[in-house]
């Protein structure tokens, strides 16, 4: 009984969602990955167009289903009723119900074609933030070639500025999708696809791969963090420390070192747990797949795994799978496959609890 009354309550709470059009927007706020509450210019244009189609579809639905229901009730007959009048058709009617839908479609087609041309191609111009998106089985890599940042599963953007994405994949097809900012765009090996949008508000938003890409397609999420220009600049400055692009000399290094950098180096030297973790990270083979500040492969830009130079500061672990906590990191390092079955992260060897503790300390210290 308890359970069923709970269900009734929940049904009642969800009931408004049954009404199309206006109410779906009201309910959308419960869904962090909704398409119905646009927070970027691209998604807003799409949403406007979508609402036009919903209005027309609702009108047609009500009229046609209404006439159908009316016919069922009005013309119910009995087996022994006389044969009804035998009508074979009506040319005028045929013309009418060919032409009226055609006009409705024109009403939809005109804004459609306009929006197609408005939303295509790359965004260019001064002030546009350039980001390179690379899909991997099963995580997302984001590079800011002009800013020297390489990161994974977390895209930071400044609010109110157009960001231009140049997108490809390192392996199979994926599709980049942050519903509140823009529609999907698939990524293909060996070619680049464009997408752009401008955030209207700050906040943390959910995105997810939308093209089936193998065993863990379901666990290929990411976060989009829209922040003020100051916050974004601070984030960039931090990320540049240990960035493979900076280390490789692709972008010039900063002339001034951010304030906390020296302190961190001193702290690292003092903390034996982190020291041990660092040794293990290099010695056990983690660096074979992950770039990391202060390791021999810190400047490698085409490794299999995400750049971990600032993993401690990220919101989530494992492509949006779980919050970035000590406990979760420990669980992940103990047995990645039990957390994300089929993951391509292979531990070079089974880690002991003590080793995991050192790695956790080491990784979490990198913020």
């Amino acid at each position: 009984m308890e359970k069923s009354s709970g269900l009734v309550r929940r049904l009642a709470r969800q009931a408004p969602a049954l009404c199309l059009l206006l109410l779906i927007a009201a309910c959308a706020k419960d869904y962090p990955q909704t398409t119905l509450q646009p927070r970027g210019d691209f998604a807003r244009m799409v949403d406007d167009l979508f609402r036009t189609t919903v209005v027309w579809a609702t009108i047609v639905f009500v009229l046609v289903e209404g006439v159908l229901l009316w016919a069922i009730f009005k013309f119910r007959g009995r087996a022994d009723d006389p044969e009804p009048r035998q009508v074979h058709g009506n040319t005028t009617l045929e013309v009418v119900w060919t032409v009226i839908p055609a006009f409705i479609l024109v009403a939809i087609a005109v804004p459609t074609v306009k929006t197609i041309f408005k939303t295509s191609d790359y965004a260019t111009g001064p002030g546009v933030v350039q980001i390179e998106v690379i899909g991997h089985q099963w995580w997302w890599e984001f590079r800011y070639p002009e800013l020297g940042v390489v990161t994974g599963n977390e895209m930071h953007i400044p609010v109110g500025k157009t960001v231009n994405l140049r997108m490809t994949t390192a392996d199979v097809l994926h599709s980049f999708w942050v519903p509140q900012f823009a529609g999907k765009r698939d990524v293909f090996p060996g070619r680049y696809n464009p997408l752009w949008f401008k955030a209207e508000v700050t906040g943390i938003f959910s995105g997810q791969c939308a093209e089936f890409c193998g065993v863990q397609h379901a666990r290929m999420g990411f976060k989009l963090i829209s922040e003020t220009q100051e916050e974004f600049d601070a984030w960039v400055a931090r990320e540049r420390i240990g960035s493979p692009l900076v280390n490789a000399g692709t972008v010039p290094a900063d002339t001034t070192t951010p304030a906390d950098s020296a302190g961190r180096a001193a702290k690292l030297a003092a903390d034996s747990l982190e020291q041990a973790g660092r040794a293990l990270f290099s010695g056990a083979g983690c660096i074979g797949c992950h770039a990391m500040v202060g390791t021999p492969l810190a400047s490698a830009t085409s490794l299999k795994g995400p750049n971990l130079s600032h993993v401690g500061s990220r919101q989530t672990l494992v492509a949006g799978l779980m919050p970035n906590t000590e406990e979760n990191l420990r669980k992940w390092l103990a047995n990645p496959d039990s957390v994300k079955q089929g993951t391509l992260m292979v531990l070079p060897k089974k880690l002991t609890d003590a080793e995991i503790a050192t790695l956790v300390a080491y990784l979490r210290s990198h913020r």
Partner: protein
Amino acid sequence: MATSVVDHAPASHHEPHTGIWSWITTVDHKRIGILYGVTAFIFFLLGGIEALIMRIQLMKPDNTFVSPELFNSLFTMHGTTMIFLGVMPLSAMFFNYFIPLQIGARDVAFPRLNAFSYWVFLLGGLFINFSFLINAAPNAGWFGYANLTSNQYSPGLNTDFWVLGLQILGVASMAAAINFFVTIVNMRAPGMKMLRMPMFVWMSFITQILLLLAFPVITIALVFLMMDRHFATHFFLPEGGGDPILWQHLFWIFGHPEVYILILPSFGIVSEILPVFSRKPLFGYTAMVFSGAFIAFLGFGVWSHHMFSTGMGPFADAFFSLSTMLIAVPTGVKIFNWIGTMWGGSLQLKTPMLFAIGMVAQFIVGGLSGVMHSVPPADLQQTDTYFIVAHFHYVLFGGAIFGLTAGAYYWFPKMFGRMLDDKMGKLHFWMMFLGFNITFFPMHFLGLNGMPRRVYTYPGDLNFEFWNQVQTWGSLLLGVSFLVFIYNMWKASRRPADAPADPWRGATLEWLIPSPPQEFNFADVPPVHSATPAWDLRRAGGGTLPEPQRVSGAGIHMPRPSYWPAVTAVGVLVTIGSILFTHAFSQWYFITLTGAAILIYGIYRWAYEPAF
């Protein structure tokens, strides 16, 4: 007194009409139709069970009812099964049984080719499902997008079973399509001009044309993929200069017409049922014919609307958007004419009619959501989400399956000489109607609120749980509704075969002969003067038709049973299936050659076997 001629004067030949051997060797289109129906229904139930397992997995977030690998196999095989082993062969059951009866023919044009089609279909279906037993079920999606299907990203036999299985099934579809095409063109009763054919025959005819034009494309694409996987080519592999997007184009040039291959037979069935149960001829017969043809024609010019998110550029997006919207016009014409047929009629709300009306009502929803994602920018949000899952289930379940079920209730008495219980049929309808809508309508909300397709699970904080749970309960109701249907058929099988020749006051030729029909169908083919010949005769008889008598078929030559079609089908299976072994051992081609030998010998014996 209607006595069976079979008792004392076997109509044609010589073979007993019972026992497994008689089914293996049969070339009678009616028995082959029943074979298609039974086999396809079992596959359909299998695909339904796969769907229910997925629904249970999705009932709550982070569920571990099935592993991600198994889930990926389940949705791949659910799609593949429902399309190639469920809906298409269920349509083939009706093609087989009713095209000859509705056009007044004694059989199809090539009866042994017909048997061959069935056996290839059966073996192909078993082949592709055999993969479950060795834990290698296809898992790259029914659409099999490159380059996930390459050896690198899909090692193992899973994708091979899919590629080769579809190739085998394609042989069956092509052979059957040629057969029905020729049958309809050549074997119509005297007086049945093209524009007097029943609408089911018309829609079937268009379907065969679609099959003949669409299947070669997927065959080529599958050959390319097979070459990539087994013979080191790189049609779809970017590292070798190939292009994964080529697969998408080839697949959808086949895949979109395939949608009409699945739905047009149902359009035909509903166009038969609505007039009979409205007691009024089909409204706008000619408009119905041409709208069907126009839909099929346009169906070849819209494929890239499956690919708006691939970034084809604004001109291609605009073209495929407009051509897709254009299809809504003839589709609307069909719906309005169905309603026009009911308007002013005397509606007899028997079970077949309920399913037919349900089909129309639900297809409207699928059609409208179809227009919604013919708008490319909006489709960028909707594609690959549950909104699309909702859309095509409204078209293919709410449309095709409801139509086929309507046909099953409508023609069951003709096929088996027994009526299905109408009360139980109505219970089946209401359960299926509710179950279907509870399962699939909320998917619109889930998709718009950001739930992607083909995910084995979802995180709790995205709030997808509530509607997923509702959908799972709906799907269980849907599943149970089919148990009612099965029970209804089982009960009918235990009653005496006393169905009248024409229980519904039907309009077409099949209702003029006994239920079930005799082997030769028509001793004398009645003249046809309109699209509703049975109504013409009924009117001439003052409103009633005499119950037709079973007659002696003496002197009517029917084709001789043959097992060579089945043998040849085994040859097809072995020849194509042998490619599985290319990576296993170097002498794999001995199996291929064995298969080819069986194939060629089968065809040789078949060709030199006397037909009569």
